[in-house]
């Protein structure tokens, strides 16, 4: 398909500016991760790898990162289970309260984290439930479910149930049908939902802020705490840079995986 040169230049130029806008803060973060001093002043004071050194020997942010990973994995696993079963129930059956569920299921992701956070925190306060990793996982799962649910439901709606019927007709059990017919066809929807869920949970701050216990220091919470301490400030930039580097291959892989399916349906409404 052809587009005029004028079009290319106008849209290309604007796009470049927007991309610069998107990457300017990131560039600064990576730059200041190599800051010689601990003062984020401009112009750049000078280069040093001391913060990466410090990070290497500092167990606290590593523990925080590991906790964030564990929470993300747990929330995503729960979300995959619950979200997929809900999507199936929706796509295949009519049941009581269906419309209400359809509306409310999107709430945890539509509502800002602060509302989910204070609502659940109040609930735990009233039931005298101690805040801990478990409460954070519960909080994260509520919005992770939506991501899986939306993606799987969108895919199911496009799939004809006749495949499953045919499988059943040919004598396969429910479980076999699920394993050999249904699962492969929703595979990429599951991957998309799982990836989004992992990403959102790992970096989540609003809900986590209200549901974390004394020893539930996730990475974002550690970062928030590090902001209060002028010594740790540049180490935070180093942490952010490391996260970026580690996630680059992951996202690249995911994107190529899903582009294969034709069309990037990361956010399937």
């Amino acid at each position, binding site marked *: 398909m052809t587009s005029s040169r004028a079009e290319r230049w106008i849209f290309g130029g604007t796009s470049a500016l927007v991309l610069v806008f998107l990457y300017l803060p990131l560039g600064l973060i990576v730059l200041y991760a190599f800051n010689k001093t*601990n*003062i*984020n*002043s401009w112009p750049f004071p000078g280069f040093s790898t001391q913060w990466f050194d410090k990070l290497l020997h500092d167990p606290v942010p590593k523990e925080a990162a590991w906790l964030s990973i564990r929470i993300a994995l747990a929330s995503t696993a729960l979300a995959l289970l619950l979200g997929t079963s809900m999507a199936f129930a929706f796509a295949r059956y009519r049941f*009581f*309260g*269906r*419309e*209400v569920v359809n509306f409310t299921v999107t709430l945890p992701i539509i509502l800002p984290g602060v509302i989910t956070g204070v609502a659940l*925190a109040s*609930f*735990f*306060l*009233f*039931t*005298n*439930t*101690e*805040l801990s990793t478990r*409460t954070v996982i519960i909080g994260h799962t509520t919005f992770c479910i939506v991501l899986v649910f939306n993606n799987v439901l969108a895919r199911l709606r496009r799939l004809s149930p006749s495949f499953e019927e045919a499988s059943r007709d040919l004598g396969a059990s429910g479980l076999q049908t699920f394993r050999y017919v249904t699962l492969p066809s929703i595979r990429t929807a599951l991957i998309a939902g799982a990836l989004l869920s992992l990403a959102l949970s790992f970096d989540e701050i609003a809900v986590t802020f209200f549901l974390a*216990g*004394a*020893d539930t*220091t996730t990475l974002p919470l550690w970062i928030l*705490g590090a*902001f*209060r*301490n*002028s010594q740790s*400030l540049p180490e935070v930039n180093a942490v952010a840079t490391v996260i970026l580097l580690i996630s680059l291959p992951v996202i690249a892989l995911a994107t190529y995986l899903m582009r294969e399916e034709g069309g990037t349906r990361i956010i399937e409404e």
Partner: protein
Amino acid sequence: MKRRSSMKRRAREAALVVVGVVALALFVASCGSSNDNSNTSSVKGPDINAKGEGQLNIVNWEGYTDPSFVKGFEKETGCKVNDTFAGTSDEMFTKFRSGGGGQYDLASFSGDASLRAIKSGTVAQLDMSKLTNWKDLAPQLQSPAFNTQNGKHYGLSFTWGANVLIYNADKIKQNLDSWNVLYDPKYKGKITVPDNPIQIADPALQFFGASDPYSIDPATLDKVKAKLKQQRPLVRKYWVLATDFDQLFKSGDATIGAGWPLMTNDLRKAGMNVKEVIPKEGVTGWSDSWMLSNKAKHPICAYKYMNYTSRPDIQVKIADVTGYSPPNQKACPLLGAQRCNDLHVTDKHYYDTIKYWETPTKPTNYRQWTDAWAEVRG
């Protein structure tokens, strides 16, 4: 025809679900129990020579769990310290009580939260016989009213200090000595003050002659509010974190402000030429206490930390980090005469001039202060 009946069905479904959910919510709300005010009269502290529980959860102000002395503690006792910071006493109190209490073992309550903690039954009585450095504390700090009630001790006094005037001496050449400068349009856009409703006490004390700036009547509160609203356009930012203050000064966005000696310390360490002043109109301040949760899960570690941080050599380290005044008089020789003087460790007269944070209850209460502060910020 079909649409109307399906809409009716949807409405009916929705109504039933709503009723069910509300019923559930009411049930949940009713089963929440209120705090048990179990102030047990028995004050048997744990065996402080026993092995610690391996962990300690603290909510406190910045600087009270600095690695420079916490690492030594963790090595000595095996108690791993998890610290959480709070920006205001309210925040500290809320965090302390969250999830029914027991989340945190220790909190460093200032005088404006300590009484609330005692009254609400969330803190335990302390066994002073187990607190080995207690007798070495300055006499006025051993059983002060803000942590000792009816002879019962609920807290171990910790550091204290004043809310001081700090300014960049490179940018502001003259010697300042009055709080008026924070309201002077000359410094417009270069001022920073704390984002904390308790700040209302400052103008009350400094400009409206309130001898007890925490017991002010509604008329005075209104006057203070008006004055603070006048100040609002001059303020660059209301700082929330101690590092906010530091960054504002370091980047030149602010050159004058109300802060803690902790900031003076940090800025000087970063090579800045700042001056710290106790202006002539008087200062508010804080006098903190370590308090132990009634539901503390790690009482042995908690007592160990209280003992550790009240040791003279550790008190010196804490003063190094924060610039606050340590309560243990035996820290004086270790600080050296100059610093001991500067920090007024043995100067009761100086200690008495500071108006320490208290919870305003009457004639105006803290909620009224919070609302007034919200109005000032807009």
